[in-house]
């Protein structure tokens, strides 16, 4: 599964949104309806799935799906 698809799957499971809604531009809070605690749980799911640590400061800069994909690639997560 591609990195994009894995990220989409995690977001769909956590936020209960449809996969079509999870575009790269989609903002977690304004487009996908996440609140602050959903975001914390989402970051935990990314940490667990991709075996990395996302700091509090980094988390706050990850506002869209595309931000997360870019971040994961920059931190050595393979396609």
């Amino acid at each position, binding site marked *: 599964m591609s990195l994009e698809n894995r990220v989409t799957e995690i977001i769909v499971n956590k936020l209960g949104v449809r996969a079509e809604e999870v575009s790269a531009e989609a903002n977690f809070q304004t487009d996908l309806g996440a609140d602050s605690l959903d*975001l*914390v749980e989402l970051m935990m799911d990314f940490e667990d799935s991709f075996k990395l640590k996302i700091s509090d400061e980094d988390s706050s800069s990850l506002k869209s799906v595309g931000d997360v994909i870019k971040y994961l690639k920059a931190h050595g997560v393979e396609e």
Partner: protein
Amino acid sequence: MKRQAFITGTGHAVPEAILTNADLEKMVDTSDEWITTRTGIKTRHITDSNTATSDLATTAAARAMEAAGWKPEDVQALFIATVTPDHAFPATACLVADRLGLSRVPAWDFAAGCSGFVYGLIQARAFVESGIFDRILVIGAECLTKITNWKDRASCVLFGDGAGAAAISSQGPGGLLGGYHWGSDGAISDLLVQAAGGSRNPATHETVEAGMHYIAMNGSETFKHAVRAMRESCLLALEMDGTDKSDVDLLISHQANYRIIDATARALELPPEKVYVNIDRYGNTSSASIPIALDEAMRRGIITPPKTVVLAAFGAGLTWAGIIVKWNG
């Protein structure tokens, strides 16, 4: 025969006055909707200026003694988990022991944040199994609203006051204290802290003006560690107990935030009817939350034997703890 420890009576006490989300809407910039969706809290009980932790603890302990059928002379030790003692010293436990009419028994406080009551049960198990005591009162009691910053909209909506107690005996029948897991990580102690009032920052005019005597919390980081610590505590306690998660009848977790309770329940694959929740009525009462919930579940007939119950908590320290309690038929 190997000595074992049983919960043979429980009790709780909360102050009468209730603070609702609507009340809080008038005090800080918040809303019932915001508080409910992020925490699950609707109301919390708050003490008046004449009531302290020992008052709640005494009532809760007296009820636990009554449930266990104990007279004052039966109790051999009493300890209280609290982060809001009446005084730094003497220990609140000494005041409570005196008011219960206990005869000069060992009595002491200890602090393990919101994990305190489960830490207390693990200590009680060790004291009973080693033969040091046969009958112990374990109490979790707090007046968190006395150290709540009512100007901090993120934290002031969370806390409430209350106390809960359990009578622990070497003689059943009762809830057998089984497998457990406990731990701490002081490297992240700054996530949840009352900064002043101790020897690091003694009370001064400046510490009071800077609000350093209030609870300060990094909510999102604490949430993250809480979810993981609760999950690990439950699973490792079950493993030590030799019990499969599919055999769990009830989860009573520390009532800090509904979303943390829910995440813990999901880790144990438990349906909502196997999860005890009363955070909506009491908010976060720290070390008192589990014994209050346990006593309610006992008195409502939810824990009718045979039942396997998981108690799990996390809190300032950070600390975490889980224990399996089995009421056998």
